[in-house]
């Protein structure tokens, strides 16, 4: 993601969509068991895929396990209040019960695949907003079928119903 933030050639339409979505959905805040600061981790040079490791191979992007967090946090940055909470989870050998920020309603009957979108070179921020500037991940982009289809049409991707609903 660090390379991507330098990219100033963000198309205007994408900014427009982002702004309109922010005005609609930006106020909804997720409360997490640990106030995970995305911005700090990205500033340290981590990429989205470093923690959400199945994003380019599976349907779900995946969340890192506590063990994965501890790979770094057992060695450095052990003092912050968030990390202290993480240490408790690690000692109790429990996973962090993260709240979901983005999800399709079951009624939407969507089988979304992250991997297909990564391989089509869709940037994370197209659908998730500028997470690198957020602390706790917030719902920045409303995932409606209109938004999906707009992008699919622009990129000449499939518009077949069965591509997502099956």
């Amino acid at each position, binding site marked *: 993601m660090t390379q991507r933030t330098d990219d100033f050639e963000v198309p205007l339409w994408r900014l427009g969509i982002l702004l309109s979505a922010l005005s609609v959905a930006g106020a909804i805040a997720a409360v997490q068991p640990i106030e995970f600061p995305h911005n700090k981790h990205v500033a340290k040079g981590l990429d989205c895929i470093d923690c959400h490791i199945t994003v*380019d*191979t599976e*349907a779900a992007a995946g969340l890192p396990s506590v063990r994965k967090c501890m790979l770094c946090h057992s060695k450095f940055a052990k003092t912050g209040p968030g990390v202290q909470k993480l240490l408790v989870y690690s000692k109790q050998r429990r996973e962090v019960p993260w709240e979901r920020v983005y999800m399709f309603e079951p*009624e*939407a*009957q969507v*089988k979304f*695949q992250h*991997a*297909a979108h990564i*391989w*089509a070179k869709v940037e994370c921020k197209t659908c998730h907003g500028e997470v690198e500037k957020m602390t706790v991940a917030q719902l920045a982009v409303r995932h409606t079928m209109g938004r999906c289809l707009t992008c*699919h049409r622009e*990129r*000449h*991707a*499939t518009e*077949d*119903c*069965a*591509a997502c*609903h*099956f």
Partner: protein
Amino acid sequence: MDQQDTKPHRWGMAIDLDRCTGCEACVAACHAENNLPLSTPDSAAKGRAFHWIRIDRYYEGAFPDIKVKFMPVLCQQCDEAPCEPVCPVYATYHNAEGLNVQVYNRCVGTRYCANNCPYSVRFFNWFEPVWPEPLTLQLNPDVFVRPVGVMEKCTFCSQRIKRAELEAKQESRSLRDGEVQPACVQSCPAEAMVFGDLNDPASRVSRLAQSGRATRFMEDLGTQPKVFYLKRGE
């Protein structure tokens, strides 16, 4: 996702009736893969049994010289599908890969399609599907569980087609013949079923479909099915 420059697939199936032993492994595999509700003797008696693929039995001769012949029947993915024009909400349509697709969230449950299907391979969810306790843990996450009030039918395991397409894309190659296998094809112990791309003249299914043994089920109706039955020897 650039699919314009590549020739679209046209999925089809060939079923060798000489090889089919009527073991119903395909039926069991289909139930497991596609989250089908359980069909009990009770539901069957009411005509509400769910089988996206079923084994039709034909008896020849009189007892004791009787011969049973088996024929697996699934959605024939007709090119001129009778189910499609009768749907008032376009919940069933033909996609670019020749699949006859059922869109569950569009379906309003008129059941016209099932009444117009000559093969009786469409099933209506009269009730919310329920599974006895341990079976809820084996539901396939890749397939949606259809709610009450919608029609459903064989999809040629489109979730498997999609997965294989993605894997091929990740390895920057095109799909190999035989790489996509619906659950029924994969489970057939006699290898009676062959699935593949009818647009590829070299694929196994194309060669079988063009062989002299191939016939199609109720072809005279003009439905142009994409399931080819290989005639049995006498």
